[in-house]
C-alpha cells in the first residue's frame, strides 16, 4: 500500500488535476489523493452518468471540466480516489484513510489543492432543517440531479447564487425569490476595478445570460436586504428581512444561503504554513512565492485553497505550482511557453477577481450575528453570546475561545465556525480581523476510527 512519490497532490479539482498532469510532463513521479470517488473536485463534481438534462443545466464550463477529467484519467498518475487525508507530516509523510483502512505514502514535495469551502452564514435560524447552503444544493443537483419540489428562497450574494438559481431554472425547479444581501456601497469600491471585469468578455457574457434568463422567467430579485432571519417551529417556515425601512416575510420551507467561498486552509493551517489575511475576501490564505511554494520547504498550494481565483485560474495556478515543485526538486526542462501563457491568463483573471471580490464582499451582519442566541458552532452548539463572553474574559483567539466554550471541538474542528468565531472575537475586543490569529487544526483532519488508526499494517509502516 505504501508508495514513494516525487510529488503528492492532495485534491482532484482543476488545480490538482492540472498540477498533476503538468508535473508528470516534467518527469516527476506523481501521486494524487482525493476524497471523492471520481475526479473533478467540487466544481466539476462528476456524476457517474450525467443525464442530458443535468448537463444542460450545468452549462458549458462543466463540459470543459469533463474534458479536463478525461485528460487527467489518461495521464500517468498514481491516482487514489476515495482517499481521505487525515495527517500530513513535516517530512512529507501523508496518512490517509481508504476503504476503511489507514495507509501512508511518502512524498518529496506536497502540493495542497484542497479548493474552497462556503463561508458560513450564521443568521438567526440558519441551523433549522430546511436551511442549507447554495453549494450543498448544487452538489445535490450535480450528483443526483436533485432539485427541490417546492419553491426555494435563495439568500446572500456572489456569482454562485445566480448560477445555482439559473441552473434550477434550467432544471425546471421553482424559485420563490432571490434576496440579495450585498451592501449597495460595494459597487463604489468595485467600480474602479470595472475595467478588469470588462476585459473578461466570456465571464461577463455568462453573468449577463444568467440574469437575463432569471428576469425573463420573472424570478423575484430583492436587493439591499438586511437583518435576515429564518423562522419556523422545528423547521424553516419563512424567511424575514428588513427592506426599505420595513420588515417583510416570505413563506418558504427551503432557504438556501450563500455569501461566497473562502479558501479551504484546513491542512495548510494545520501544517503551520505562514498565512496572511486577505481583507477583501475576508479569510486567511497561505503566503506563497511566484511558483505557489509556501514558506516551509517541500510544501506548495494551488487553486482556491491559496485564495479565491476560480476554476479557470486554478488550472493555471496548478501548472505553475507543478513547475515550482519541479524546480524545488532540481528538475530542468521547464515548459517556458506554458508558464508564460498561464501567467498571462492569470493576469486577466486577477482583474475580474478584483472587481467581483469587492462587489460581493459580504455584509458584516451576514458574517457576524448580532443576536447573542444565534448558534455559531453547530457541532457543540455554542452561541454568539458565549463566544462574546469568552472574548470579554480574555480569549484573544480561537485556541482560548475553544478552551472556554468548546466551540470548534466537534467533528469539523472549527472548519465551519472559525470565520464567525474570529470575527466575534475581533468585534468584542475592538481588534482588526487580521489581529485574531487563525485557528490551528489538528490531525486527524477528518474523523478516523480507532480501529483504522490501530491497524497493524499501518503501525509497522509508521513506526
Amino acid at each position, binding site marked *: 500500500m505504501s508508495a514513494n512519490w516525487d510529488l503528492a497532490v492532495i485534491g482532484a479539482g482543476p488545480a490538482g488535476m492540472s498540477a498533476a498532469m503538468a508535473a508528470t510532463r516534467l518527469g516527476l513521479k506523481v501521486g494524487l489523493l482525493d476524497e471523492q470517488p471520481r475526479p473533478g473536485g467540487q466544481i466539476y463534481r462528476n456524476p457517474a452518468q450525467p443525464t442530458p438534462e443535468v448537463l444542460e443545466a450545468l452549462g458549458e464550463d462543466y463540459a470543459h471540466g469533463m474534458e479536463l477529467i478525461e485528460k487527467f484519467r489518461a495521464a500517468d498518475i498514481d491516482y487514489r480516489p476515495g482517499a481521505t487525508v487525515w495527517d500530513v507530516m513535516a517530512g512529507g509523510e501523508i496518512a490517509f484513510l481508504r476503504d476503511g483502512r489507514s495507509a501512508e505514502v511518502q512524498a518529496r514535495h506536497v502540493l495542497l489543492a484542497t479548493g474552497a469551502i462556503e463561508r458560513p452564514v450564521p443568521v438567526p435560524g440558519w441551523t433549522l432543517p430546511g436551511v442549507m447552503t447554495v453549494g450543498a444544493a448544487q452538489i445535490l443537483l450535480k450528483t443526483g440531479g436533485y432539485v427541490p419540489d417546492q419553491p426555494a428562497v435563495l439568500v446572500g450574494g456572489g456569482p454562485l447564487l445566480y448560477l445555482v438559481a439559473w441552473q434550477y431554472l434550467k432544471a425546471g425547479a421553482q424559485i420563490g425569490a432571490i434576496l440579495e444581501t450585498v451592501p449597495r456601497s460595494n459597487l463604489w469600491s468595485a467600480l474602479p476595478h470595472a475595467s478588469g471585469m470588462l476585459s473578461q468578455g466570456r465571464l461577463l457574457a455568462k453573468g449577463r445570460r444568467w440574469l437575463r434568463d432569471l428576469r425573463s422567467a420573472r424570478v423575484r430579485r430583492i436587493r439591499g436586504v438586511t437583518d435576515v432571519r429564518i423562522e419556523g417551529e422545528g423547521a424553516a417556515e419563512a424567511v424575514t428581512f428588513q427592506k426599505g425601512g420595513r420588515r417583510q416575510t416570505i413563506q418558504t420551507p427551503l432557504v438556501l444561503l450563500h455569501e461566497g467561498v473562502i479558501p479551504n486552509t484546513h491542512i495548510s493551517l494545520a501544517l503551520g504554513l505562514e498565512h496572511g489575511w486577505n481583507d477583501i475576501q475576508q479569510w486567511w490564505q497561505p503566503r506563497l512565492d511566484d511558483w505557489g511554494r509556501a514558506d516551509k520547504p517541500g510544501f506548495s498550494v494551488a487553486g482556491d485553497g491559496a485564495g479565491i481565483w476560480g476554476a479557470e485560474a486554478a488550472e493555471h495556478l496548478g501548472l505553475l505550482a507543478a513547475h515550482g515543485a519541479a524546480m524545488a526538486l532540481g528538475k530542468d526542462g521547464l515548459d517556458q511557453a506554458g508558464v508564460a501563457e498561464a501567467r498571462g491568463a492569470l493576469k486577466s483573471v486577477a482583474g475580474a477577481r478584483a472587481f467581483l471580490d469587492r462587489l460581493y464582499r459580504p455584509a458584516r451582519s451576514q458574517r457576524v450575528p448580532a443576536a447573542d442566541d444565534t448558534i455559531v458552532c453547530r457541532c457543540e452548539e455554542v452561541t454568539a453570546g458565549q463566544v462574546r463572553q469568552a472574548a470579554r474574559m480574555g480569549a484573544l483567539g480561537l*485556541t482560548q475561545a475553544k478552551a472556554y466554550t468548546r466551540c470548534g471541538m466537534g467533528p469539523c474542528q472549527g472548519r465551519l465556525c472559525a470565520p464567525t468565531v474570529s470575527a466575534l472575537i475581533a468585534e468584542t475586543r475592538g481588534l482588526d480581523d487580521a489581529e485574531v490569529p487563525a485557528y490551528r487544526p489538528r490531525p486527524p483532519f477528518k474523523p478516523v476510527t480507532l480501529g483504522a488508526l490501530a491497524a497493524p499494517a499501518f503501525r509497522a509502516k509508521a513506526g
Partner: protein
Amino acid sequence: MLFNGCALAYSPPPRMTDIRDRQADIIVVGGGLVGSAIAYGLTRHASRVMLLDEGDRAFRATRGNFGLVWVQSKGDGAPHYTHWTRNSQERWADFAAELKARTGVDTHHENNGGLTLCLSESEFLDRRSLMERHRRDAGNRGFEYKMLRLQELRELVPEAGDSVYGASFTPYDGTANPLFTLRAVHQGFDKLGGVYRPDHAVASIAHRDGIFRVETRHGTYEAPRVVIAAGNMTPGLARQVGMEIPLNPQRGEILVTERVAPFMRLPTQNMRQTVEGSIIMGDSKEDVGFDTSTDTSVISDIAARAVTAFPILRDVPVVRAWAALRVLSPDGLPIYAASEECPGAFATICHSGVTLAAAHANELGGWLMGADRPEAIAKLGPERFHVS
C-alpha cells in the same frame, strides 16, 4: 506581486491596555492551570493580584491535560508527593463546589475511583507491588486499593476486552474537565478582584530596591512579589531572579473520539469518558523538545492500546488529536522554589495541574505572601537536585 495576492505581513501593533493599574501586591506570570489556581488562592491573602498570560498560541500544557484528579500512580518512593497529591484530592470536591457557586461554571469533577489496566500477569503483579508500597508509605493515613482480575473488573466495566488481565482500583481517583476548570478559575479570579491580562507574554523580570519590574509587550508592571508559573518557560524567567529550575519538557499526545453512549463508569490512567460522551485517551511519553506537532506512530499506538482495552471502541471515530508539552522536572515531581537572591520571587513547575489545582488554590497563598513554607512541600524545593 505575490503569487496569490496576499496582503503584506501583518504584525498587529501593540495596544495600550488600561493602564489604571500597573502595580500590584503580587504578580503571577502564567495563566495556565497552575498559575491561575495560585492567583485565585492569592486573592485571599493580597488585595491586588495580577495574572499575566500569553497570547492565543502559547505552549499551553493545560490544553494537553488529560483531566484526571489522580492519586494511584503518584509518588512511588516519594511519599511526601503522594501526601501532597492526596491533600489536593481531598480538597477537590469543595474546590469544585466553591467554583460552581462563585462562577456558575461546572468543572465536571467526579470522584468515583479509578483503574489502571494491566495487560499481562507480570504487569498485574508489578502493579500489586506498587500498590502495596503505597499502602506501606501512607502510614496512618491509610491507602485503600483493590487488585481486580478480569472477571471482577468486568463487574465495574463490562466492556473490558479479553486481552486485559486485570486492574488496580483506588477510590481516591477521579476526573475534572481541565478546560472548564481553567475557565472557572479565571472567572473566579476575576470575581474576587484579580486582574487578568492576556497577551502579556513576559520578556524579562528585573529586581531592584525590593521591587520586581516585569516587562511585557504592553509595558512594565511592578510588584514587590512575583510568582513564575509559566510552564516550560519558567526556567528562563526564574534564572533572571536567581532560581535554577531544572526541566525536561515531554510531549504528550491525546486523542478524542466522537461522543458515544456512556460505558466507562470509571476512568483509567490513560482513558476516560467525558460527561459529554467523548472518550479521551493519551499518555504517551516522547522526548522531543519544543515541538508540538503530532506523530502518527504515537497516535497509532494510543489507538491500538484503547482498542485492546475496549474492543467496542474499534468503530468509534477519532475527531481530534493534539500534542502539548508536559512540564516535567527531572524526577517528575513538582518544584516549588523561593529565591534567596531576590526575596519575594517564587517559581513553580508542575505536571499535574488539574490534580494539584485545589492544593495550589488553598495552600500556597500564605507562603507566597511571606509566611513559612508549608511543611507539605518542604521536600519539593529545587534544592533536591543540587549535588552536594
